[in-house]
């Protein structure tokens, strides 16, 4: 794997999220979650609802307290949120009393305290035009559709020029056409800005199409990394090409198989001592083919 040579952008080691239980036995949502992310890499985190994938992301964002273990971003252990880890939330979370421009400016002012007014304005305008909202800067959230609102959310995140872009089910509330548009927007941005990113999703296609590596989480409680799947498509990616590639279906089936079978078995999560995981793409054996044919026949 050539990517291992690149410096690590994020290191997550033995991450634990524990919710105290009033009767003494604490409830561990996430346990021993280990993951290294290389610079410029795009990770997708997939798993069943409630398995704790959003918890991992919010801990990485600093919005959720870390119970044990740690996260290092850019050689510094994190303990609070910050603009080096911009988040795109599931809801656009725009301030309804500010227009698109002002919403993006909100963070820019803080992140670039020494920039002149014109410079800040340029940054905001640039990030809004990157997401295709050059014409809608003066519009208020209520005048924008859900998809356009989420674009503002993305613009707000990238305007901070973060080290890591965190996407928390960003397209969960959008219809599939808008979702595809926004996926392309994100992919374009990442290709251009060379950002490290992590996306939490439960859409298998999205996880495969967007990411360099798919991290499959086992089911909670005590969820951890179940498997990691290397996605071998070259970048920049083209939707049509990727979706026609037979490998796409292999990856997809692999993920589905994991989600349908392995994730349910307790104790099946595989953690690796060094926090790194080898790719699983080479062992899509007969087993998976079987599932694929079974599925096909069931559909027929």
């Amino acid at each position, binding site marked *: 794997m050539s990517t291992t040579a690149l410096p690590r952008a994020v290191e997550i080691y033995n991450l634990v999220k524990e919710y105290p239980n009033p009767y003494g036995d604490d409830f561990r949502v996430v346990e021993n979650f280990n993951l290294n992310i290389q610079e410029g890499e795009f990770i997708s985190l997939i798993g069943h609802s409630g398995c704790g994938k959003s918890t991992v992301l919010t801990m990485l*964002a600093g919005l959720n307290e870390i119970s044990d273990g740690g996260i290092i971003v850019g050689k510094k252990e994190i303990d609070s*949120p910050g*603009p080096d*880890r911009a*988040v795109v939330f599931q809801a656009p979370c725009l*301030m309804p009393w500010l227009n698109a421009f002002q919403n993006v400016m*909100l963070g820019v002012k803080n992140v670039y305290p020494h920039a002149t007014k014109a410079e800040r304005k340029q940054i905001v305008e640039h990030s809004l035009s990157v997401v295709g909202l050059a014409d809608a800067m003066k519009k208020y959230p*209520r005048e924008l559709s859900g998809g356009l609102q989420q674009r503002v959310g993305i613009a*707000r995140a990238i305007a901070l020029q973060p080290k890591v872009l965190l996407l928390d089910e960003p397209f969960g509330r959008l219809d599939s056409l808008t979702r595809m548009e926004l996926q392309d927007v994100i992919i374009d941005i990442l290709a251009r800005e060379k950002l490290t990113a992590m996306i939490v999703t439960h859409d298998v296609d999205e996880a495969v199409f967007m990411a360099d590596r798919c991290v499959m989480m086992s089911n909670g409680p005590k969820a951890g990394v179940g498997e990691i799947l290397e996605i071998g498509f070259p970048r920049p990616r083209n939707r049509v090409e990727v979706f026609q590639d037979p490998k796409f279906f292999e990856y997809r089936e692999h993920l589905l198989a994991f989600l349908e079978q392995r994730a349910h078995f307790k104790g099946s999560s595989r953690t690796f001592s060094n926090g790194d995981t080898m790719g699983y793409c080479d062992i899509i054996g007969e087993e998976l083919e079987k599932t694929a044919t079974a599925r096909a026949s069931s559909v027929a």
Partner: protein
Amino acid sequence: MADTPKDKIKYGLLKFIDLSGFKVFDPPVRLAFGEDPKKQISEIGKFMILPIIFVSLCIFIWSAVAPTHKTKSGAAPTPKQVWGAWEDNSRFGEREDEKLEDYELSGEARTARITEVESRISELEAESLKLEEASTIAAEKGAAITAKQIAPLSAQLDELKAEIKTAKASRKIALENLAAKVAAGESPASSVLTLVQQQSETAEAEKEKRKILDDQIKEIRDNPPESIKAAQLAANKAADEIQHFKKRLDILNTSNKEVKKAALLAKVDTDEAILAASTDPSEIISKSKSIVTNTENAASVDEQRFAPTATIAWQTKRSLATVFVGFLIAAIVAIPVGIMCGLNKIVMACLTPIISIFRPVSPVVWLLIFQIVVGAFFLPDPAKHPLFTTLNQDYWFGWIKNPIAFLNTNPAMIFSACTVAMCALWPALVNTALGVSAIDKDHLNVARVLKLGFWARLFKIVIPSSLPLVFAGLRISLGVGWMVLIAAEALSSSDGLGKFVWDEYQNGSSQSFANIILACFIVGIIGFFLDRIMIILQRLVSFDDGSSTA
């Protein structure tokens, strides 16, 4: 929708109606622009005509029931009487304004006004004479009618009186005869008792009959024909009008500002002349003194104001000013404290006991407390306290016209305002705290990710997002304040609608009863409009509402 200018006007109007909450006027506007007339007419029927009919019905029931309820100050006022009270009060107000104007007039305007008033007086006098005559004639006619109506009744009464007299005499004889028989032992003693009892019963029955006739006559006498009343009223009104114009003439001629000053200065001149020629030392002293005082008085005439009379318009203005000041104090205190409570749980915990204990306290108690506590600041002589001398000055710094001088601010007004503030404080405070603590968690997360500082978070996120609830609280506060104010004014005798009601109650005539009902309507209508204003403000700051545009 086509964007013709007509449509623009239409949708602009509809938007305004929606914003101000007068949804009822939506169908008429749409109808006026010809949109789906059938639907609009049915809407108008349901939501305008029916309510109007219902309210008319209520008024009708009121006017039917009111006269039947006799109170110690006459029958309860009918809607008509209340309307009359409104007319009387507004006439009174207009007259006071005229007098004030006359007081301020000077130069040629004054002489012109004098001739105007004089000619009006002569006109009115002629008219009044006629009305007086008409009234006398009507009274005579009425008296004739009454006499005619009474004549048969009084004949009956006379007859009855005569009958009663004879019956009484015969009863007396019968009783005496029986008594004589009893004395002679011809009848048992108990028969006398029976007869006495019988006789007293008949006497009672006779009295009853007489009373009925008396009442009938009295009823006719007390209720002369309406025409007499009307003529009398018209004559009185004319006489009243003449009196008013005479008073105006008096003001114009003698107590006018300019005239007063001129008279004083003339006196100074004559005194100076006398002083120059005088050789008597005591005269020199007295004239010098008089010159000094008169010069001073002449100078002070400029600063003198025509004392504001308690017209209902003036009382209303004072009430509005008081409630505004009280509301402002409440908002200034409640919003920052509410924000602190919402932001910090410890502050909330510290203030919760205070809020919970003082919120239910009656405004009356607050008023008394403020009279003592705040009153202490105005000792020893409230009238000379710098606050009031400043607020009641005609000109500030000698050239800025004081717009609130007419309010005649006094300690009682301050106490009422403080009471209003104290009672209006709580809803605004609680709602602000609620609004701040109920901020969307996502918004706070955004603020955390963006690493906004305290002030940026406060002004960019916390305050804007809690504004709708803050304004909802302020709206309740203003409603509470207005309600409390009327009670506070009544109790503290601070001039205003509350005092108006209280004074009228103390007056206790049938007219004052109508005045109280009138004040009730004025208070209600003003309260309604204050609430509307707050609704509009609330809607303007509500970002979720499509009607707000920045």
